Every structure is written in C-alpha cells, then in structure tokens.
C-alpha cells in the first residue's frame, strides 16, 4: 500500500532560493523565498542600465572570487562547462591526429569536447570509486596520446598524484573535467588546480549554478590564460585586431551576477551535501544489496551526485519513483557503447568495471534542501524494497 508521500524532486532548483518548510516541497514560493530573487533582479537592472553585457564587471568580480576560492592564479568565465573543456584542449594545442585518454563513465560533453577539437577519445576503465583508474591510463598511452582528461565524477576527485605522475613521466597534458567538483579537494588542493586547466560547469543542476548555461576554466599558466581569453572572445586582441580565428564563448554578465550571489553560499551548500551524504551512508550501509560510495582518505568529495550501486537497480528505481522519490541513473549507457561511438570500434566487455557500474548505479537526491526526515524516508523505502524482494 502506498504511504503518504512527500515529493522529493531530485534537484529542485527554486529551493536554492528557499527555506524548505517541513517535508513537503512543492512549486509554491513563500514570500521570503521570493525576496532572494528580488536581490538578483536589482543587480540585473543595474546591469541593463549600464549595458555592461559582454564580459562586464560582474564577470571580473566572479573570476576574482573563483580564484580566491580555489587558490588558482587565473580563472576565466566561459559559455558552458562543455566549452571550458573544448577551449582548454584547443588552447593546449590538441587537434586532429591526437589522442586524449578519458573515462567511458561520464557525461556526453566530455567526449563531445574532445571530438570537437578533431582529436580521438581513447577510453580507460574506471575503478570502484567511479573515477578513471590510473593503471588503466598507463595501458592506453600510445605515441599519439597528447592529453589525459580525468573526470572527478559526482564530485569525488580522481587520484591526482598518480595521474600527475604519469603525465610528467609521459609528457602528457592534463585537462581536468571538474564540472561536478567545485570545492572538492585532493590532499588539500582544490580539484581543477592540478592539470594544465580545470574545467567547471555552472549548469542549473550543479552545486554552484547559474540560470542558464555557464562555465569557467582555472589555470596556473599565464600562456593558457591568454590563449583562452582569445578563444572565448572572437580571437580579438582589442576591438579592432583579430589574432586568431577563434569562437564566441563568454559567461554572460547576467549569469555572473547569479553566480556571485550563490558564491556566498557555496561553502554551506557543499557542507550540507556532505552532511546529507554522511546521513545516507549511515542509513544505507547495513543493506547488503547496496554499495555506498567510497570515501577515500585525504579527499573532500562534494556530492554533486550521491551514487549508490544497487541490486535490481531498475526495479528499485521504479519503486522509489512510485514513492515520490526522484531517483535517477547517471548514466545507464557508457560512452564507448553510445551510437555516436560506433566508429571508435569498442564493444561491450572492453571496460568491465564501467559497464557493471552503469548497470547498477542509482543517484539519490542529496541537494542542500533535502531534510534529515526526507533522507530517513528514502532509506526506509529502500529497506522496504529489499525486505519485500
């Protein structure tokens, strides 16, 4: 019999501007929730009056604050996390004939960014932590390999010391896909600051988000910064001189205003996600049909997603959805088995860990407005599912 359901959306964005009020989260705003938007609107209006739309003051402010947050020498706002990756690869000189080693367990954009440059993605299997396995990277290196593109999946940093060691020994560029990993760190160093660049998304579903598409790149290299600055803005050295044929990929000033507003809250957002994950861990660790996410030492993982592995995953997902819980699969089909990857020549069985992960993962809502009661409720439903099966 169906219990009384609190509705738990997976990533309920308006809630970012809201205090959740008890168990029921719905699409109504309370007056105080609306006031958060008003503050942003006031800044929008100032922007419009000043017509400071293109790489305006708020973008500068955002880049300064991101540099401080991550202790990165340079930061550049761009049009999206996807563009952060493709521009980084282009700025690093990656192009046709080159190979870039990455994980088959990622979002499509990681691969799209590589293909956009003309280079070939080469996959290396992942470990039980869902991240690329450094030992598998080593095996995938060929004479054409130019770069490693590790993805800090779900907000857990990859084993960057091992990856950086390979990169130095084999003379390979590292471009970090840190789209899930704002405020994550590995041995005290921010995710996104190990490689030549670190690439971040501010898509509406990210821990730090804007109201549309947006992203940024971190780098410690002045040369990369200067190249990226050209690549995001038509290759223009100044208003009238174009140095290279580039592109247009800028973080809208309007979106930088939203990001600046949320940057003030990013530590508390991160902390509440970590706390929610810890509560899930405690509640779920006794269920034998589940595996909770790994917790490597010396690593701060920020739980953009809380990803468990579950027996009878599809049935469990449906059961949870029926109970009002927005459980999702990120993602059911690995990159090497996508229709788009056909020409790469991979088959099922090439990356067994990744394939097993894709068949069994389930993401539970972990965002900052989920309450303890809601987590308890989710855990209780999972227990009930396995008790009945």
């Amino acid at each position, binding site marked *: 019999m169906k219990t009384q359901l609190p509705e738990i959306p997976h990533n309920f*964005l*308006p809630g970012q*501007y809201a205090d959740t009020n008890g168990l029921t989260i719905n*699409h109504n*705003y309370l007056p105080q929730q*609306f006031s958060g*938007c008003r503050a942003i609107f006031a800044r*929008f*209006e100032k*922007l*419009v*009056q*000043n*017509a400071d*739309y*293109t790489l305006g003051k708020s973008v500068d402010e955002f880049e300064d604050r991101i540099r401080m947050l991550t202790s990165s020498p340079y930061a550049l706002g761009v*049009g*999206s*996390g*996807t*563009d952060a990756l*493709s521009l980084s690869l282009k700025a690093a000189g990656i192009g046709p004939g080159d190979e870039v080693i990455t994980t088959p367990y990622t*979002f*499509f*954009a990681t*691969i*799209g960014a590589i293909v*956009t440059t003309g280079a070939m993605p080469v996959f290396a299997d992942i470990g039980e932590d869902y991240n690329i396995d450094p030992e598998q990277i080593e095996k995938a290196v060929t004479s054409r390999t130019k770069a490693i593109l590790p993805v800090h999946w779900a907000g857990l940093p990859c084993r960057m010391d091992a990856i950086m060691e390979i990169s130095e020994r084999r003379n390979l560029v590292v471009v970090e896909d840190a789209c899930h990993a704002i405020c994550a760190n590995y041995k005290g160093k921010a995710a996104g600051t190990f490689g030549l660049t670190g690439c971040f998304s501010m*898509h*509406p579903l990210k821990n730090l988000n804007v*109201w*549309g*598409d947006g992203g940024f790149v971190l780098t410690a290299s002045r040369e990369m910064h200067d190249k990226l600055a050209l690549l995001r803005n*038509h*290759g*223009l*050295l100044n208003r*009238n*001189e*174009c*140095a*290279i*044929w*580039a*592109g*247009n*990929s800028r973080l*809208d*000033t*309007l*979106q930088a205003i939203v990001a600046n507003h949320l940057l003030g809250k990013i530590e508390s957002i991160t902390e509440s996600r970590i706390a929610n994950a810890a509560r899930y861990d405690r509640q779920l660790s006794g269920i034998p049909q589940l595996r909770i996410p790994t917790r490597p030492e010396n690593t701060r993982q920020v739980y953009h997603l809380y990803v468990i592995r579950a027996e009878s995953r599809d049935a469990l997902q449906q059961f949870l959805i029926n109970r009002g819980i927005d459980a999702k*699969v990120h*993602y*059911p*089909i690995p*990159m090497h088995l*996508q*229709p*788009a*990857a056909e020409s790469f020549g991979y088959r099922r069985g090439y990356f067994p860990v990744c394939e097993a992960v894709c068949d069994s993962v389930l993401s539970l809502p972990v965002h900052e407005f989920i309450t303890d009661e809601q987590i308890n409720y989710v855990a209780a439903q999972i227990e009930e599912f396995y008790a009945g099966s």
Partner: protein
Amino acid sequence: MQEVKFVDLGKQYLSLRDEILACFDAISRRGAYILSEELDRFENRFADYCGTRFALGVASGSDALHLSLLALGIGPGDEVITVPNSFIATAWVIARTGARPVFVDVGDDMNIDPDLIEPAITEKTRAILPVHFTGRPVRMDVIEEISRARNLYIIEDAAQAVGARWRGRRTGSLGHCAGFSLHPLKNLHVHGDGGVITTDDPALYETLLKYRNHGLANRDECEFWGVNSRLDAIQAGIAEIKLKYLDEWNARYREIAAIYSERLADYVEVPRDRVEEEPTYHRYMIRQPDRDRLQSFLAENGIETKVNYPVPLHLHPAASQLGYKAGDFPVAERLAETILSLPLYPELEEQQIDYVTGKIVEYSKKHSLKAPLQAAGILS
C-alpha cells in the same frame, strides 16, 4: 553640450520592465532554465516572423552560423565565399570548420557584389555566405541564380538584419539557412549572448536540434558527438517579449535614418535605399574621406560614433595564412577608411537627432566638405 551615446539600452528596458521581470520571475519559479517552453514559443514565433518552417535558438550569432556550416558538412578542403567588410565572426565561423573563407569585394551598398561571386568560384566552393551588412538586405537574385546553377548553399549572415525585407521576403528566408545574432547591440536583443538559426530544411533542422545539445537523441543516448550551444530560457523569454515590438522599432530606425539622410546628403555620402528593399538600419553609416577628424570633432561635442569596422577581415593578423594583401579588395578597404556609424536607436530623441545632424553640418561647412558623388551630380 549634449551627450549622445552610441547606444542607450536602459531606455528600452524601462519601457518593458514589467514584462521582463514577470518573465524572469515565472522562469525562476519553475526553475527550468534550459531548453524550456519559453524557447519553444520564441522559436515558433521567430520562424513565423521570418516566414521559415523552423527556427532554433543557440548560444550566439556566431554559433548560429558556425553550427549551420558544420551541420551542412562544410569542412577541411572546402571554400566558402563571403565579404571582407564584416564583423570578425563572419570569417572565423568558416575558418573554424576547417574550410577556407574566400573573400569577394562589395559594392557601393556595402554588400557583396554579386558580379564578383562567379569568378571566385572554384571546384572547392560549397557555399556563399552573404552578409546583410548594416541591416541592408543583399540583392539576392543573382546569388540565387548562381547558387542554383553551381549547386552551392546560401547561408545568410543576418546578424544585423532581423526584420529586413527584400522583395517582400524577410531575411532569414532568403537562403538555405540563416544565422541571426541577439547580442545586446542588435535591433532585437537579449541580455547576454544569443543567436537564432532559421531554415526550411527539415533534415538540417533535426541535425542542429541535436547538435546544439550534445548530439543527444534522448537523455541517455548520444547519436553523434555534439556541442553545447543553447539559447538560455531567460534570454528566450526576453526575445519573445521583444519580438512583438520589433516592427515598430525597425520602423523608427528607418524613420530616423531618413531624417539623417535628408539633412546630411549634401555634406557626406549617405546610405540609399532601393525600392525593392526594407533595411533595418542596425547601423547608419555615412562616408566621409575626412572621417577620423570628423569623428574626433563629434566626440569633442559629446556625440559617440563608431567605425564598423576599421580593419577589413583579410588584413587581420588571423587572416595572414589566407594570403591576401592590401589592395585586394579596394571597395571594402576604402570603406574601412571612410565609414562612420552614427548613433541610431528608436529611443533617440528629436533634439538629439537635431544635435547630431547640426554638428555634422557645422563641421562640413567649416571645412567646405561636400559629398563628392552628390556634388558631382552623379547621385541626386
């Protein structure tokens, strides 16, 4: 002294403030920021407006052209014919596909000279990319003939020409597909970067629909590796609101342009409309050999003007590998030295218009400057 800014976007915003804030509010309440109902609605209305079957919102005007070229399969080894007097994006959208931009000179209307296209065609030519510069539609008849005879795509660069008409047809419907910009300085603009593609070709539309969104066939399946180039819901909502007023605004652009031309024609070369066309006057450009000094004089008097653009595309450092040199495109090069864009937007007040024209007349009389063609009786 008065101050006449080159653009004054704040005024337009104030007239639409309630509508725009309500739109932000509605989107924020729903929390649907990507590929939303606002975008669907705007795309439908924009396609209706242009008279095309499809319209597709993307991240910028440059992307609109770049993705169109990629989706048509244009790449390394191909050539695309375009003009050297345009914004830099017109060239890089071609070059970044791996194809080669091939420039041909423009005519007195600042648009591609149709007679020069045929000699520039080689066996590698795949497309013609005419630019409706300043918002004046390109004379399409010759180009359409060439395109049919030589089997070439026409991709309109309509970044400056939203709402313009040529023989009654809107820009965006004059070629195989078109790219529009919604950049804040355009006649129809959003509050950041944005662009639109229009086309009648269902196959191209289907490809672009996926290509702009990572090549996804659905949430979990990627049909081909794509990019991320989407018009944000917030920007689509703003564009949808503003599209309702576009014809009204464009009419005012033309009205002010007519006043400028009437008062200035004896002193500088002014743009001239053909009967068959309805331009948008995204830019109102006069021509004056003494341009730099005139520009300084106007600046000293509080009038902001611009040169769009002082360096033709073939003479940028980025174009060095294309092998062009100064002198290759004499009309475009001469334009770069003589053109000056005056402030022109619907919110410009009568007294500001009087002031701008008054100052140009004052300067011209002081230096005995006359419009050479008009003075010689070649143009009336």
